[in-house]
């Protein structure tokens, strides 16, 4: 419930949201204004509270992964990674090198799509709709990569406990390089359109400034903290997966205003693309020996068998989504500890042991049973430190799962950030936070 205490007699109370184009559907802000200036405000969240944490207490570990997709739905892969990391730390299992490289590559792709939508939405709300159209084109290229790798565009459920769902497709390099090339072109264009645009500068420079001390006190992490000039990035401070092996810089801002946040995000996208390029090389080094040149299409195999009288077995291509769950790449993408990972699909379809293994993995009451204890694992999400705090009582469902959602902390500072600014400034300030309902409200 909104509670606002009038501070002045000459003031006017104005309600914005929850169904307001710039409030992303799930926020309500009530501001007290004197003239055009905001003197006091109250923010209400919770319109997208979907009971993630309660639901997680009723699902076995692998079944929670689809729910984590829908936390920060602009970068679902990073959420998958965070949750998988928490469970793996609790179980004490090691993920193979190739899976780690794939994870990092997919994380960075997700980070780019996250920043693209955020920057595009923010600029769109300040009046430049062209940029939205351009940037969504770039996102579409990356979504093509995500689509062909994971089988889904948004809700991927790709990074699993103990590994990843499948190996990358054969044309991964091609697709990714194309996406990177096109995105670089689009980002250059957007940079030319926006970065020195006087209207944009006037609407963002010196707007929504928060001092370093306040930013720390509000628990800021991610691009917003770095925009104030404080160097903190989970990827550098407590590296996970293959981040120690790749080279990248962490862009920093100076003033901590909306413009700096925009700049930091734009530069971060470039750094992410650099990481992806290094990951592509690393992936080539660890590529499994593919037997795919022997693979033929099912239809082709059938027609061949008609004319070829000799006894010859042909491997038939599996559907693209199952690619990588074939035996030869299985060791590369799933943990050696077979108790905690699903068996390869060929084993499930062809042997009784495989089916038993599969059942033990998915059945309620069996499944993955981590030891009693608690764990906190964090990854660098699109908005900052995304942490999963997990308490296990030794059964196959978590006793408690709590998400440290970065945008929840950012939102708690909104009232202070908009104080003293004009009503029109609320929109870019709010846009620069990149509030994602699924993450804030859970």
């Amino acid at each position, binding site marked *: 419930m909104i509670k606002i205490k009038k501070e002045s007699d000459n003031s006017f109370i104005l309600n914005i949201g*929850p*169904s*307001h*184009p710039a409030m*992303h*559907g*799930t926020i309500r802000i009530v501001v007290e204004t004197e003239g055009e200036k905001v003197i006091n405000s109250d923010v209400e969240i*919770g*319109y*997208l*509270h*979907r*009971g993630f944490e*309660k*639901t997680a207490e009723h699902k076995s570990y692998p079944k929670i992964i*689809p*729910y984590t*997709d*829908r936390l920060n*739905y*602009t970068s679902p892969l990073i959420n998958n990674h965070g949750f998988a990391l928490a469970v793996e730390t609790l179980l004490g299992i090691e993920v193979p090198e190739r899976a780690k490289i794939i994870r990092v590559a997919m994380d960075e792709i997700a980070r780019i799509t996250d920043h693209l*939508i955020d920057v595009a939405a923010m600029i769109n709300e300040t009046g430049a709709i062209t940029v*939205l*159209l351009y940037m*969504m*084109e770039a*996102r*579409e290229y990356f*979504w093509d990569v995500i689509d062909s790798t994971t089988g889904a*565009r*948004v*809700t991927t459920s790709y990074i699993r406990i103990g590994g990843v769902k499948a190996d990358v497709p054969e044309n991964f390099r091609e697709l990714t390089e194309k996406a990177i090339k096109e995105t670089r072109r689009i980002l250059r264009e957007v940079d030319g359109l926006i970065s020195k645009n006087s209207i944009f500068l006037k609407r963002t420079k010196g707007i929504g400034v928060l001092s370093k001390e306040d930013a720390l006190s509000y628990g800021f992490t991610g691009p917003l903290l770095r925009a104030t000039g404080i160097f903190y990035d989970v990827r550098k401070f407590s590296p996970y997966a293959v981040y120690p092996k790749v080279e990248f810089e962490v862009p920093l801002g100076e003033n901590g205003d909306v413009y700096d946040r925009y700049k930091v995000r734009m530069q971060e996208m470039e750094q992410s693309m650099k990481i992806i390029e290094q990951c592509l090389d690393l992936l080539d080094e660890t590529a499994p020996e593919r037997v795919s040149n022997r693979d033929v299409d099912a239809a082709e195999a059938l027609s061949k068998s008609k004319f070829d009288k000799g006894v010859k077995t042909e491997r038939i291509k599996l559907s693209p989504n199952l690619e990588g769950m074939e035996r030869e790449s299985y060791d590369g993408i799933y943990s050696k500890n077979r108790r905690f990972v699903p068996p390869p699909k060929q084993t499930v379809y062809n042997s009784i042991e495989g089916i038993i293994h599969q059942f033990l993995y998915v059945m309620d009451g069996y499944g993955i049973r981590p030891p009693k204890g608690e764990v906190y694992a964090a990854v660098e999400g699109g908005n900052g430190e995304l942490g999963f705090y997990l308490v296990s009582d030794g059964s196959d469902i978590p006793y408690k799962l709590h998400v440290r959602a970065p945008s929840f902390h950012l939102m708690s500072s909104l009232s202070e950030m908009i104080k003293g600014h004009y009503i029109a400034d609320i929109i870019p300030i709010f846009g620069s936070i990149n509030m994602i*309902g*699924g993450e804030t409200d859970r």
Partner: protein
Amino acid sequence: MGVESGNFITTKFDSILGWARKYSMFVYPFVTACCGMEYIAAACSHFDIDRFGAGLTRFSPRQSDVLMIVGTISQKIAPVLRKIYDQMAEPKWVVAFGTCAVSGGIYDNYSTVQGADKIVPVDVYIPGCPPRPETVFEGIMKLQEKIQNQPQDWRWKK
């Protein structure tokens, strides 16, 4: 005779009205959750929802014809949705976009409404979590069919 010709004119006029209405849908996107990402994808230049005459988004319920419920409806936002529907002027249609709006989807707990049709009448359901843009367009074409074939309401109709 006169009555019959009157019917003839009415049906023809209905069909013209339906044709006009189906190609100029002003959409109110009630975007709450993940499906919004796919809504943006469908609306932007790559897939281009404008090909179906549904490209103009209006964020005022008074100006819009189609209420597109994009995303999970929680118990907290349910009254808001109801109010927006009530504020829309006739003729109006409702599209439930995504599994959460269709049936609650994977969220079956204390805070979610099990489908938007518990709150407002829904004309077209677009399943998918989230639906791909192609599915969205299929849904929009279904809605166009419905608009074309339904009896139209107009001022001097009797």
